[in-house]
């Protein structure tokens, strides 16, 4: 074996051992998600006519096109690939990014790779091991989907195509994550790069799909997430599309190895610049510290929000071009309330998406408390004159203010994008104001999720990270897939976003927002009260 790769086998074993719970969980969730969707579609939409009706609604509604992608074919398989293909690929990408960065840059930043590097381990072995672990995970996921999907009643060839589309998308991002891990000195920033590429991929696909025939539909082809869709797994698959992600995998891997061979241990592409030798006057307590620790990441999120929602807002205008396609569709539109109702539905779907993504920021901001605690960085704060509640509150306030800011950005950007593209059909100022309100209406629901994370941090600190993200994942799943899976009402009601009035267009009622706020506040109070009583890790 190449000397630079010595020890790779042991490192792969170590990685698999460390991920022995997380990896199977990811793979299980993705597999079950796709399979149960296929099974449910098969049961709910038995006849071709029923499926045709769903297809018609899917083809005509840009909001659905935006969220799920373009539908090709009317079989149960096509519906499954449409509703879950891109999303499953997205989850496979998240899994991949976590594995690759956890075993490369995160370990290097924590100093663990230094210990490993001093043993008989080749320079490239940690990277190779991380890549192998991620590849293995994607291969297992692909094989599992190939085996399980036919059991839910899908044709074998299409199942294989869908499985390969999902697995190779993960593979493409294996390469991208490996490169990101070489560029930055911090794992957090490396993950940020991968998420940015992922967000851009989703956006490119979403805009390409919902732009209509005259729009930039080539965007769907531009980045990996769209490839899962253009493969058309259940409608005369274009097998050759699989070449694209595999090529991306090899290109990324080659780049990462080349970068890793040229840099020092612990270094990124950009060296750290010296900072200020004295603290600014503003840095003087838990609140300013929490802000200082999180503002950069918040700025990144806000930039992403501004870009994504401006583009998506602008895409709302494309809905009009779909109107002329057929008489049947025109009637359908009229029945739903005409073009303005359809545009409103699309914009409301956008705001729901903004609320869900902003909730992810809120959860990460709250769980920063736990990260600080386990890293031992809470001790110096708590041995100062500030109490635990002030410390806990400091990050909760960042979560609240940051989430509000993100939703405001989403609303304003959507309003601007839509208003400016509408050629005077609506006023820009009016749209901005309307969408700002619609965006901020999602805030109480997002804060309920943050409140759950805060309560978990106080009551079950060891499980708080798992609880926070699992609850968010459930809420995302319920909010996005709940209705098409015809889940019963009490399940849908679990998600706080179910109770938010659908804005714009829906009737505004302050009562649910008030109740959600009270729930969020109560959860935060429970978390802080528990934090006062418990031991600090």
């Amino acid at each position, binding site marked *: 074996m190449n000397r630079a790769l010595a020890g790779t086998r042991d490192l792969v074993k170590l990685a698999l051992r460390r991920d022995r719970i997380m990896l199977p969980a990811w793979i299980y969730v993705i597999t079950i998600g796709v399979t149960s969707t296929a099974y449910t579609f098969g049961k709910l939409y038995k006849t071709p006519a029923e499926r045709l009706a769903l297809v018609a609604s899917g083809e005509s509604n840009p909001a659905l096109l935006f969220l799920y992608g373009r539908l090709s074919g009317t079989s149960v398989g096509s519906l499954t690939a449409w509703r879950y293909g891109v999303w499953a690929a997205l989850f496979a990408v998240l899994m991949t990014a976590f594995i690759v960065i956890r075993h490369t840059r995160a370990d290097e930043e924590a100093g663990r790779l230094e210990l490993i590097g001093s043993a008989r381990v080749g320079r490239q072995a940690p990277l190779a091991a991380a890549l192998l672990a991620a590849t293995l995970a994607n291969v297992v996921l692909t094989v599992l989907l190939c085996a399980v999907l036919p059991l839910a009643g899908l044709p074998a060839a299409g199942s294989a195509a869908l499985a390969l589309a999902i697995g190779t998308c993960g593979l493409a991002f294996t390469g991208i994550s490996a490169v990101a891990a070489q560029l930055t000195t911090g794992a957090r920033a490396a993950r940020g790069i991968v998420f940015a590429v992922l967000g851009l991929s989703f956006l490119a696909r979403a805009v390409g799909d919902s732009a209509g025939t005259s729009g930039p539909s080539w965007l769907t082809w531009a980045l990996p997430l769209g490839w899962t869709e253009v493969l058309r797994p259940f409608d005369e698959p274009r097998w050759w599309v699989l070449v694209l992600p595999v090529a991306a995998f090899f290109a990324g891997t080659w780049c990462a190895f080349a970068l890793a061979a040229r840099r020092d241990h612990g270094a990124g592409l950009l060296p750290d610049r010296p900072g200020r030798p004295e603290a600014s006057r503003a840095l*003087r307590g838990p609140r300013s510290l929490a802000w200082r620790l999180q503002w950069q990441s918040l700025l990144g999120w806000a930039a992403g929000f501004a870009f994504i929602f401006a583009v998506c807002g602008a895409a709302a205008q494309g809905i009009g071009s779909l109107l002329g396609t057929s008489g049947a569709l025109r009637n359908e539109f009229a029945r739903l309330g005409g073009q303005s109702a359809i545009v409103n539905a699309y914009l409301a779907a956008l705001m729901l998406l903004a609320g869900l993504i902003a909730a992810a920021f809120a959860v990460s901001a709250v769980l920063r408390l736990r990260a600080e605690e386990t890293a031992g960085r809470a001790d*110096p704060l708590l*041995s100062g*004159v500030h109490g635990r509640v002030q410390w806990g509150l400091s990050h909760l306030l960042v979560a609240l203010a940051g989430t509000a800011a993100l939703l405001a950005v989403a609303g304003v950007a959507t309003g601007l994008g839509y208003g400016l593209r509408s050629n005077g059909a609506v006023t820009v100022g009016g749209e901005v104001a309307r969408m700002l309100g619609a965006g901020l209406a999602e805030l109480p629901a997002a804060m309920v999720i943050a409140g759950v994370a805060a309560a978990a941090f106080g009551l079950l600190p060891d499980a708080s990270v798992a609880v926070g993200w699992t609850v968010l994942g459930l809420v995302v799943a319920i909010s996005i897939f709940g209705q098409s899976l015809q889940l019963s009402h009490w399940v849908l009601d679990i998600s706080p976003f179910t109770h938010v009035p659908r804005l714009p267009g829906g009737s505004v009622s302050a009562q649910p927002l008030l109740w959600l706020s009270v729930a969020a506040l109560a959860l935060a109070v429970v978390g802080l009260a528990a934090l006062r009583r418990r031991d600090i890790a």
Partner: protein
Amino acid sequence: MANAIEASGLRKQFGPTKALDGLDLTVRSGEVHAFLGPNGAGKTTTIRILLGLLRKDGGEVTLLGGDPWRDATTLHGRLAYVPGDVTLWPGLTGGEIIDLLARLRGGSDDKRRQDLIERFDLDPAKKARAYSKGNRQKVALIAALASDAELLVLDEPTAGLDPLMEATFRDCINAERRDGRTVLLSSHILAEAEALADRVTIIRAGATIETGTLAEMRHLTRTTIDAELSGPLSLSDVPGVHDAVLDGARLRCEVDNAVLTDVLRVLSATGVRTLTCRPPTLEELFLRHYSERPVAAAQP
């Protein structure tokens, strides 16, 4: 107020593990008190209870006249703490962290801060992620020493410092003592306690096994004798002599202080070329405390 810290019968349990099992600790105001024990003896757990980070399961504890759990924030204005394993915010510079920690304790002296940064030879413009363990330790130490706190709680403060910096650290602690500040210094580096401490508490497995001044503790124990003799000798019939090794004319043994006169008489009768008598080092005390034998058996 005579005592800065008073703890008695302190107990703390983590799941099935008993971390503290009836620990006693008394630190008088104005003294440098060394808190000694091997890894895992419960030093850090005790300190974290004193800081109000952990809640005690039983026993009594008073810190600066208050309850460390209930009055945590008020008491924290009067103390400064250096953790054993210093982790810093990777994106902040050393200088920023020093200032932040000082402000979290209610302010510090700018001149002292500057002076300490120079003495410890720290580059305050570097990001914490680029610091070595020793430099991270320096950041926490400078922040604590620059404060006006009346009590310094230092958890293994010199782990990671080089000998030169260790000497600087000792100078600083001696200066603190002159200023009348109280210092609690946990350590397993015994030379440090020997050089700095007025009084010492030794713990093992969560319980105190010895406390007092070093002189008091040596009184209980033995003197080590190294001698080169001019004739043959038998010490086997003298009670109170331990671990005697005779290598040609060279003798090495440990003697209970109570029988020192008798042993010296035997030696001088034989004829002595060179003779070194010294009190046991803390290492030797330590070894005895942590050997399997109970402490009492080591005494005459």
